[in-house]
Each structure stands twice: as C-alpha cells, then as structure tokens.
C-alpha cells in the first residue's frame, strides 16, 4: 500500500501530467490510426473469407470442394490459436517484406492484420449464418445468382449484425495494439510500457489505461448506435 501511494505523490502526478501533455497526443493518434487501418485491412481480407466460409459450405449456396474448405478452416483456427505476442515475432519476415522494417507503428499493422483477419472471417461467418435461410431460398426462387444473393441479399440483410461484430473486432484490435506497442510498435501501449513497466512511473501507465478505456467506449458506442440506427427491423 505504501509502495502504491508512493507512485502517486504530487510530484509523480505532475510528472505524469507533463508526459500526458507532451507524448500522449502522438501516442493517441498512433493508436487510433493503427487500430483503424488494421481493422480496415482485416475486414478487407476477413469479409471475403467469411463469405466463402458460408457460401462454400456443404449446405451453402455454392458448395466448394470439401478439402479446400477443410484447409481454410484449419488455417483460420491455426492463426487464431497462436498467441499474439508470438505471432508478432513469427510474422517479422513478412512485416519486413511489406513495410521494410519490423519496428514502429506502421510495421505493427502487419501482425495486427494477420491476427485479426481470421477473427473477422469468423465474425462475418457468424453474422451471415444468422440470416434466415428462407430469405436465401426466396432469392433463389426468383432466379438470383450466387453473386446476387451475396451482394443483394446476404450482406445488406446482415448490415446491423456485421457492424456490431466489426465493432467487436475494432475494440479487440485496440487491445492488441498495446501488445504490439510493447513489441516495437508505437502508440499508447508503448508509452504505458516504457514509463509504467520500465521506469516504474505507474501514474503514466494508469493515465494511458484511462485513455484506452475511453477510446474503447467511444468506438463501442459509435458502433452500437450505428448498428441500431441502420437496423430496419426495429419499429420506430
């Protein structure tokens, strides 16, 4: 307790405030753009993959060869089960090949995307599976092609659920940025680890945590509001 109190003496707090004013703006910016870009790329990769998981299924609208679906599923499960900290190290060669370096905010986007896109694919899969199969049958009965069913029925009908799940993805990725920050990335995670863990400046760490919590709140409430506003099933 004594130890704890010592970390929050007036001079420690004013020092933390100083760090907050000088380093947090850049850190916050880095965290936000890394999170948003990583989510964007994860969706770009995960959305088509999620669609494939549903349509290519044995009972889907365009069944794919079973072995192919098996391979895709195993690969997704594999990527999802590697701990993120280890994944960051594992993809260093890929990061270097794409970004040129494995250090810094931009470089941290690569492992984030690799970790998040299989997750997003599963989220998209679950969103699309929620859809009433009768609706798809209706589209088939009107002569819609696979392509038309995906883009005119499955995706538009799943928009609220997709937004809810993308919000989940964005908040999860935000949490991961702290880890990649500690492993050579930038952002609030880096600041929290550098000051809080390496230099025992707990006040700075706590401030960083508060900002991260607020950020999650902001993303979550925007996502929730958007999903419910776009959902036409809710009577208004």
């Amino acid at each position, binding site marked *: 307790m004594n130890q704890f109190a010592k970390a929050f003496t007036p001079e420690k707090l004013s020092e933390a405030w100083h760090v907050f004013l000088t380093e947090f703006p850049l850190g916050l910016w880095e965290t936000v753009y890394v999170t948003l870009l990583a989510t964007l790329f994860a969706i770009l990769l995960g959305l088509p993959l999620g669609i494939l998981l549903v349509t290519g299924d044995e009972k889907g609208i365009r069944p794919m060869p079973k072995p192919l679906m098996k391979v895709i599923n195993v690969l997704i499960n594999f990527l999802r089960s590697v701990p993120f900290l280890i994944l960051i190290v594992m993809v260093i060669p890929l990061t270097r090949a794409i970004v040129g370096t494995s250090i810094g905010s931009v470089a941290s986007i690569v492992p984030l995307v690799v970790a998040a896109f299989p997750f997003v694919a599963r989220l998209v899969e679950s969103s699309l599976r929620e859809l009433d199969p009768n609706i798809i049958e209706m589209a088939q009965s009107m002569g*819609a092609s696979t392509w038309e069913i995906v883009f005119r029925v499955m995706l538009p009908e799943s928009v609220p659920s997709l937004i809810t799940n993308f919000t989940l993805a964005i908040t999860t990725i935000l949490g991961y940025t702290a880890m990649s920050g500690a492993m050579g990335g930038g952002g609030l995670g880096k600041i929290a680890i550098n000051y809080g863990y390496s230099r025992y400046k707990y006040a700075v760490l706590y401030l960083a945590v508060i900002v991260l919590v607020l950020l999650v709140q902001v993303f979550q409430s925007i996502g929730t509001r958007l999903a419910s506003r776009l959902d036409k099933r809710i009577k208004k």
Partner: protein
Amino acid sequence: MIELRNLSKSFVTSDGPVDALRHVNLTVKDGDIYGIIGMSGAGKSTLVRCINMLERPTEGSVLMDGRDLGALSKKEMQEMRRTVTMIFQSFNLLMQRTCLQNIMFPLKLAHMPRAQAEARARQLLETVGLPDKANAYPAQLSGGQQQRIAIARALATNPKVLLCDEATSALDPKTTHAILELIRQINRDTGITVIVITHQMSVVQEICNRVAILENGTVVEEGDVSQVFSRPRAAATRALVFPEMAESDGLAAESGSQLIRLIFEGAETTQNPLIASMAIDCGIAASILNASTRAVGGRVYGYMLLDIPGGPDELAKAVKYLSGTPDVTVQVEVEYAAKEAGK
C-alpha cells in the same frame, strides 16, 4: 399447363435414403387454382419446390407447356423462375429494405431500368391494396400486410404461375380469408395459374377448383374439389375432410356391431329426417355414433356413422333404404357376419 410426370424425390439422410415423393403424376391446367393438401411430412413442400426446380427431382420430369424444366440451362432456369414465382409461409421479405424496394427486387434481378421498376412496383402496391406503404419497412407491417407485399413482389415479373407454399398458415382466419380473396381476384384478372400448398382444408375449399391429396409422398386422390370432398375415397382425404370421422374409425373397430357410413351431399338431404324416417318405415332404430356437416364450394356435405342393431338382414334392409335416398352414398364399414367369422 404444368405436368408432373412420374416425379420422385428422395433425400439422403444419416438414417439412409428417405422418399419424399413417389411417382407423382399431376396435370395443372392454365388458370387453375390447384390445391395440394396433406398432413405435415406428406411431401407438399418438396413437391412445390420441384415445380420451380429449387429441388431437383430424383426421377421423372416437370413439363411446363411441354418443356422439360429439368433440362434448362442456367440462364433459362433464371428466366423460368421469373415466370414461376413463389410466396411463402414466413413471407420472406427483405427486412432491411422498404416495401417498394422489396417489390423492385425481382425486377432488379431482371435488369429492368430503375424508373420503370419503380413505376411497376407502385402499380403493384395498388393491386394489393397498400399504396401508402411504399416507404414502410416490413417490420412496421402486420402479417397480412407483409404477405400482400410478398404477393406484389411475386407478381412483379408478370409470372404465369404463382406457387403458394402454406402462404396463409401463419395468418389468422380473417386475414387468411382476405389474402385468399386477393389471390382469387388476381387469378381472375390475370388468368395466372395458382398452385396452393396447404394443410388446411378451409383454404382448398375457399379458393381451389382442383385438388390433389398427398400422403407419404404419393397422390392418393385427385380431381375437382367438390367431387373429391363430397365423396372422399381415400382414408387420408376423409381424415382431412372430416377429422372427427377419422377418429371414429377406432370406435368402429372396437364396438363389434355393424356400422355403416352415410355420406350425403346437398342441403335438401341435410334437412331430410332420414334416420327418423328409416325408423318409421323399416322399424330399424339406428343409433348415430358420429356425424358432421361441412360446406364445400357452396354445397353442404356431411357424413354420419350409424350403428344398425340386429343381424345381416337388418343391415341389408337399412343399406337398401338409405341408398334409395337421392344424394346419399352408403358404405358398409363393419359387417356383423364378417366380425363373427373373424372371431
């Protein structure tokens, strides 16, 4: 004209193959409102899905105006599905689109220009009596209204055949009546052929002119509605027309006496005090075990299950007397002698 020729469909399940349809033969003429009725699990849904090839028949063929639908190319199949459209029990509207957009959906699939599609959709909203719901979302509508929008959507591409898969099963009786009335009116105005799949007798009675009774994947009876329902031959038909009668079959087997079944047709017969007259004229005091009447297509039909006291002579006498009455069909259900011999 739609012809189903020797149509069979089996599914492979984990418990082995299941025959959903067995050698079904049916002919639906243009402009018919054709009912296909059966208990759940009889194969109705599979049958209707074979007509627009949502299910591929395992055997046999579906001919539309002589053309085998099973042999269509992918493109021809898409075109066929614009001429054979479908409405469903659960309406299946796109919940994230307005009513107008829902009706425009098949037109977009057919690549109709937007303005033209919208004009057509508005005109259909008028047809189904919901012109003010263009910009409403399906969730804001009642079940009956949703089915009206689904009907408008199904009519958008000017189909020749409308398939109704339990279209009124989720609706209350009053709404059911209104929806059936709408379908009948559209049939009258456009000459569209309608195939109605249902488990409800009342639906067939109300709008169909022809009916097929499906049981365990086979058509057990087929013909004009009034004919089939007034003289139900197959047990499945009887069970549908007079559910009480089906229950009384157990009664007949137990009682050990001689039973006859009267099936009568027409209001005059219903008003005739037949049983009382028989008692007076023949001295046979039959007891009524079960009876019911029902109106089908404006005519009254009924049945009666009678227990005839005495021996075979009385039975023969009763049958002769009752058969002499116009519009009455007599069937001997349990014969005393036969029962005795069986013991």
